[in-house]
């Protein structure tokens, strides 16, 4: 005799209560027979209040609404209502867990069995909880379904962990499948944890800012500030105060960007715009790790990482005398050169699709893609503004196009001028009479 048959049903419920996962016992008619303590805590439903209710109102999971894979008969209109169903109800099933021997069910024909499905549930406190939902039908010796057991594992912690790992290793906003971008992506996990200065170069729109943020988020400084510093055309003295703060004896102390970035990362967006006096102070900071705020008597040593960027070739800047050689050599510990979109044209198709999906979701439109003519134009365009420009082009097209296939007419007019040399279509400005332009040509 199977040992399981010695247990009373109440004992089994006690065991279920002690388990750390949520368990819902559901009748073949889809009404709740029992929910264990963990599920009660997860959903906010008291056991007595939930008894006899349709399971979909207790779980409130996505599959409950989008189409219960188990064929919730009550929901299909054959048995609406609360009911105290008999355990013996329900038709015979061929496979399942048997109460007598707890034989493992191998396959119930849906992803709900064994592996489960990832979904989310809505609790009584109006909170969405990510869960893995696994379903087991329990059969009697005659093969009749006694009840179903839905197992819910709370994935909140795992999702948070996944998010943290994604931040650490994922370069969610740094997009590209070309070999050049793959090489850069592969470098990030090894560069990010170090505190070494990073110099990022690349044309405008190649993603220097995004790479700087990605390096910060992937580092152990990710919970500390990321301070971005645009070098504005201010006099050097004012800029020094903006950078290093001021601490005059008779005036209130004013922290600069270096103090604001303490513990985190300071990102200087265009190193070539720095005045020579600031460059000299930066050299001192990179040498000693300390700087003197304007008007102060004592140096301070904030623990920060310096990331700088330029859209020009730094070696050329040094040769022109714009960038101090000493600063360049100190910043150039890790140098990442981002390729222009022209140098990774194989990414264009992928980027077009990525941004089209993004804007389709944002504007709540359905796009089937680009027409062959539009695709030809997009492929031949030179993208002087790189990825930023491509993104703007797709955003414009997604705004202008009501849905379906995006045609040449729905692309920005200026695109034709930069792709004419390659023999592409030359669309007129949006709103301009097309025929007139065609006649001129």
């Amino acid at each position: 005799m199977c040992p399981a048959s010695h247990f009373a049903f109440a004992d089994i419920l006690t065991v279920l209560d002690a388990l750390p996962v949520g368990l819902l016992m559901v009748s073949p008619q889809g009404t709740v027979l029992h929910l264990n303590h963990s599920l009660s805590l997860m959903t906010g439903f008291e056991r007595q209040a939930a008894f006899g209710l349709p399971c979909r109102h207790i779980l409130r999971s996505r599959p409950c609404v989008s189409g219960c894979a188990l064929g919730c008969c009550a929901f299909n209109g054959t048995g609406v209502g609360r009911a105290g169903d008999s355990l013996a109800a329900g038709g015979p099933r061929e496979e399942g867990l048997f109460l007598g021997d707890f034989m493992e069910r191998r396959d119930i024909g849906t992803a709900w069995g064994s592996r489960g499905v990832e979904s989310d549930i809505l609790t009584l406190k109006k909170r969405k909880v990510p869960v893995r939902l696994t379903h087991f039908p329990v059969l009697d010796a005659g093969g009749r379904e006694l009840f179903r057991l839905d197992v819910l594992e709370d994935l909140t912690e795992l999702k948070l962990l996944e998010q943290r790992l994604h931040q650490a290793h994922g370069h969610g906003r740094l997009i590209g499948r070309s070999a050049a971008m793959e090489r850069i992506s592969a470098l990030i996990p090894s560069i990010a944890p170090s505190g070494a200065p990073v110099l990022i170069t690349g044309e405008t729109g190649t993603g220097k800012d995004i790479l700087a943020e990605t390096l910060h988020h992937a580092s152990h400084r990710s919970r500390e500030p990321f301070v971005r510093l645009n070098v504005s055309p201010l006099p050097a003295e004012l800029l020094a105060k903006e950078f290093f703060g001021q601490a005059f004896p008779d005036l209130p102390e004013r922290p600069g960007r270096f103090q604001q970035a303490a513990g985190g990362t300071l990102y200087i967006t265009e190193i070539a715009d720095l005045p020579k006096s600031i460059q000299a102070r930066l050299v001192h900071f990179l040498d000693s790790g300390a700087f003197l705020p304007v008007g102060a008597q004592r140096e301070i040593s904030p623990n920060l990482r310096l990331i700088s960027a330029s859209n020009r070739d730094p070696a050329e800047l040094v040769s022109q005398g714009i960038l101090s050689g000493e600063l360049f050599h100190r910043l150039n510990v890790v140098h990442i050169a981002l390729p222009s979109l022209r140098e990774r044209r194989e990414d264009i198709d992928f980027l077009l699709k990525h941004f089209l999906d993004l804007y389709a979701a944002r504007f709540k439109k359905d796009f089937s893609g680009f027409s062959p003519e539009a695709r030809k134009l997009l492929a031949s365009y030179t993208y002087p503004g790189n990825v930023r420009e491509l993104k703007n082009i797709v955003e414009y097209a997604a705004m202008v196009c009501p849905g379906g296939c995006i045609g040449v007419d729905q692309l920005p007019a200026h695109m034709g001028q930069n792709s004419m040399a390659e023999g592409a279509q030359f669309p007129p400005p949006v709103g301009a009479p097309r025929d007139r332009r065609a006649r001129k040509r």
Partner: protein
Amino acid sequence: MPVKYALLTICGNEIAPRFDMTAEVLIAPLEPMADGGGEDAERRQLVLAHVSGEELCDVITRAGVNVVVCCGIEEDYYHYLRWKRIEVISDVMGPCEDVLARLAQGALQAGDCLYASP
């Protein structure tokens, strides 16, 4: 004429389990306002183009609904609708007609279950 309207998130002939997964809504007039309007008001049943909480909020605000009756609702949508001065009666379970009748009596409350007791 000012008529008080209720919107029920429905699935079949009962309240849908989740607000953000609702594909169909029932807009029904409640009692006429004090000036006696609303006699010509009729029920409307809308099938949404997309299942989306945001879109449903948009439909609710544009339809001039006064009361929303639903089952599970995420707090973001709940607070948004409340902020728009729309009453939200959540966690309601049961057949639409029973819910509407209870609502018309002014007796419907959050968490009400109108299924027959076992």
